[in-house]
């Protein structure tokens, strides 16, 4: 052991000889292996893809409210284009927005800083993961412009529709879509290795497992969950790609294949995937709430264990997506039990967060508003999931807009509200300037209020029987009433309003970056290690001889032995 300690010390000094010499000039931003630069790359790519995914939503919601309209900025929407729009909207938002922003961007940025390290353990693999990710995004975008158009078989890509070109009529688009998703998987597998090993091994001296901020834990647990669940789908995707390109018959019933095999492989991943994105959002939320209530997290270990329990349980619920798919009806009963069971640890997580507010001294800054909105809105998503997990009710709700509204009440808080929470909270650290609070609040209300006006009408439409992925409800007399069209219009107008308010956000970003107040090291008076260094941190995060040591947990707010209501982790007792 002592040999290792000496060797480590020696290496630390040796490693720092050229520690300060990252790539210079503009090349710095392309070839850099600095985790903060890579994080920014993921962040900006994710934001760019969010704009594209949001544009797609704008187009198809215009078509739904005003069927046949020539949508400004797009033109008339054909049935095939409609399917491609909804397919790629979903695919982009999950794989090219939620995951890169919540996990890759904030994970990369925060994990080394929060554990007092100077970078990730494998910086070049980190850079490679972004490069593969970027390629995956380009492949996905290219799939929209090839002959035949973009893939339109939904993000779930069920064969035989997705496997046979004659059925989907988008031969090239289908394969490019699939390859893009597969490349994204590879990028995140590579990234995950860095997150997990860095968190496990590269902690500052004195930092025990329970001294790690919850957001860092959550991102790592999510990475593990992703790695363990995506394997079968990668196998399934290889089989699908072969069906598409080599005319194999893995999913062809006429040749002994089984379309439902794909469904199992897909959802075995698909369900854990939602927790892959949920856990980081919860981590972000609880860290922000702790800072702005000036409170220790009520049940750090409870949160950690229930997060792991949720992750484990998430492997046993997948077929609730397949209740009416043709699986053995007896299996449905098993999955109803497991699915309702998983609501228990999730409820636990939410209760702990709410309990953290008790006894606090709550400041409603912009990041805090976002974190609180995450809770309030996600609750709606969570409880509406119960209707779908109960197989008897799902017979009716499956493939209706009720499902769609449910998952937007989970995904939107996760991907959008969670991202804005993280962004507004760590902006001062990343860019060295404070964001404008007034503009921030205008943007907040202008996003959250319209959000509800988009999706509550969709709940109502779903309860009325409106099914999904239909470009024009005029073909269905029972769904073409004036009442229903009113609801579709309300949802669309609300979306337009929400889009308008996003310009406030972009304006705020640029204005703050250019002329915002200097942030200093720790504008929020938070405890965690990232706030002990410059804003933005230099290459290497701290000067070589000032790497932090840790003396306590991350949430020692309002400690009775202290005058100050916060106690940074690196301050000696």
């Amino acid at each position, binding site marked *: 052991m002592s040999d290792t300690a000496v060797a480590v010390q020696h290496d630390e000094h040796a490693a720092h000889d050229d520690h300060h010499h990252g790539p210079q000039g503009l090349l710095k931003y392309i070839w850099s292996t600095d985790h903060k630069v890579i994080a920014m790359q993921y962040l900006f790519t994710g934001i760019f893809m969010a704009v594209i995914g949001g544009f797609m939503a704008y187009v198809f919601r215009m078509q739904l409210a005003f069927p046949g309209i020539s949508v400004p900025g797009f033109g008339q929407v054909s*049935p*095939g284009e409609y*399917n491609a729009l909804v397919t790629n909207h979903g695919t982009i938002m999950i794989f090219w927005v939620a995951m890169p922003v919540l996990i890759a961007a904030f994970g990369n940025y925060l994990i080394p800083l929060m554990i007092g390290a100077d970078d990730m353990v494998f910086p070049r693999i980190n850079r490679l993961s972004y490069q593969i990710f970027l390629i995956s995004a380009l492949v996905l975008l290219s799939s929209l412009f090839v002959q035949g158009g973009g893939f339109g078989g939904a993000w779930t890509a*069920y064969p*035989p*529709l997705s496997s*046979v070109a004659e059925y*989907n*009529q988008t031969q090239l688009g289908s394969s490019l879509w699939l390859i893009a998703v597969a490349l994204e998987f590879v990028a995140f597998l590579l990234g995950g290795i860095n997150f997990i090993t860095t968190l496990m091994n590269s902690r500052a001296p004195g930092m025990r497992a329970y001294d790690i901020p919850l957001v860092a834990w959550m991102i790592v647990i999510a990475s593990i969950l992703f790695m363990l669940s995506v394997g079968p789908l990668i196998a399934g995707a290889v089989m699908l790609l072969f069906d598409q390109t080599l005319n194999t018959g893995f999913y062809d*019933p006429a040749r002994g294949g089984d*379309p439902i095999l794909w469904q199992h492989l897909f959802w075995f991943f698909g369900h854990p995937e939602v927790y892959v994105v949920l856990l980081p959002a919860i981590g972000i939320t609880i860290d922000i709430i702790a800072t702005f*209530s*000036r409170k220790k997290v009520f049940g*750090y*270990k*409870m949160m950690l264990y229930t997060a792991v329990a949720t992750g484990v349980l998430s492997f046993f619920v997948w077929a609730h997506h397949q209740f*009416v798919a*043709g699986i053995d*009806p007896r299996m*449905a*009963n098993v999955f109803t039990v497991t699915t*309702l069971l998983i609501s*228990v640890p999730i*409820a*636990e997580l939410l209760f702990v967060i*709410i*309990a953290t*507010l008790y*006894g*606090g*001294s*709550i400041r409603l800054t912009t990041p805090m508003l976002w974190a*609180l909105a995450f809770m*309030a809105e996600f*609750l*709606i998503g969570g409880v*509406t999931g*119960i209707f779908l997990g*109960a*197989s*008897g*009710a799902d*017979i*009716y709700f*499956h*493939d*209706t807009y009720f499902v769609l509204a449910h998952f937007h009440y989970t995904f939107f808080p996760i991907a959008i509200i969670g991202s804005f929470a993280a962004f507004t909270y760590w902006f001062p650290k990343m860019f060295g300037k404070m964001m404008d609070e007034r503009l921030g609040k205008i943007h907040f209300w202008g996003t959250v209020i319209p959000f509800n006006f988009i999706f509550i009408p969709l709940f*109502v439409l779903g*309860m*009325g029987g409106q099914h999904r992925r*239909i470009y*024009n409800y005029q*073909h*269905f007399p*029972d*769904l073409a009433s004036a009442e229903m069209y009113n609801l579709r219009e309300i949802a669309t107008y609300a979306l337009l309003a929400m889009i308008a308010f996003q310009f406030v956000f972009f304006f705020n970003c640029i204005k703050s970056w250019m002329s915002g107040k200097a942030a200093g090291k720790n504008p929020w008076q938070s405890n965690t290690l990232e706030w002990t260094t410059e804003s933005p941190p230099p290459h290497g995060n701290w000067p070589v001889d000032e790497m932090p040591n840790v003396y306590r947990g991350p949430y020692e*707010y*309002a400690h*009775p032995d202290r005058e100050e*209501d916060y106690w940074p982790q690196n301050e000696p007792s």
Partner: protein
Amino acid sequence: MIDIIQGSTYAGDIDNLILLIGLLVGFWFFAAEFMFFWLIWKFRAKEGQKSQYLTGKEAHVKKWITWPHGIVLVCDVFIVVFSIMVWMDVKQQLPVADSTIRITGQQWAWTFQHPGLDNELDTADDIFTVDELHIEVDKNYHFKLESRDVVHSFSVPIFRIKQDAVPGRSITGWFNATVMGEYDIQCAEICGIGHGVMAARISIEDANQHAAWVAANSVSTTP
């Protein structure tokens, strides 16, 4: 709310299950949201007042987590039991059939094969229709659901029934209509460019009307 009638013998059961879930989760939802907003208001930052240092072991706060935890579990058990009961009725326990029809989905239409005058499927007098299903009210129908190409899904909102049609399989389900009239049949699984036009109609007729329709359309082999 949008008016959607209960058109089958099990529609009411499904609606009641939905109502039960609504009441139980509704209670929790409002309780949690109320608690949440109340705490934000009560513990808003006040000049000179410090926050409390709570480690998570304090019983007076912890009980607000452990008790709800337990009650949530009990609610879940309730919902699971009722859900399984409804599910078994709709999907597992088929009543004896008064009549059987074959439903075939394809890109992009529904073909319905009705038994003809002999009330037997796959005989010479069967009635084939496209995008219109004719049945008699208050009768137990079995359907054999198939697909010619991709995965489709047979959905009749007023019945509350939904069942995916998987190529290579013939899946059996049932319904018993309790109202008369014409209503939507949907395809509830994206099946390609024409998914949005895969609309059909179910015509639920009384005994006389239905008998007349069968007689008019059935081509019997006996002269």
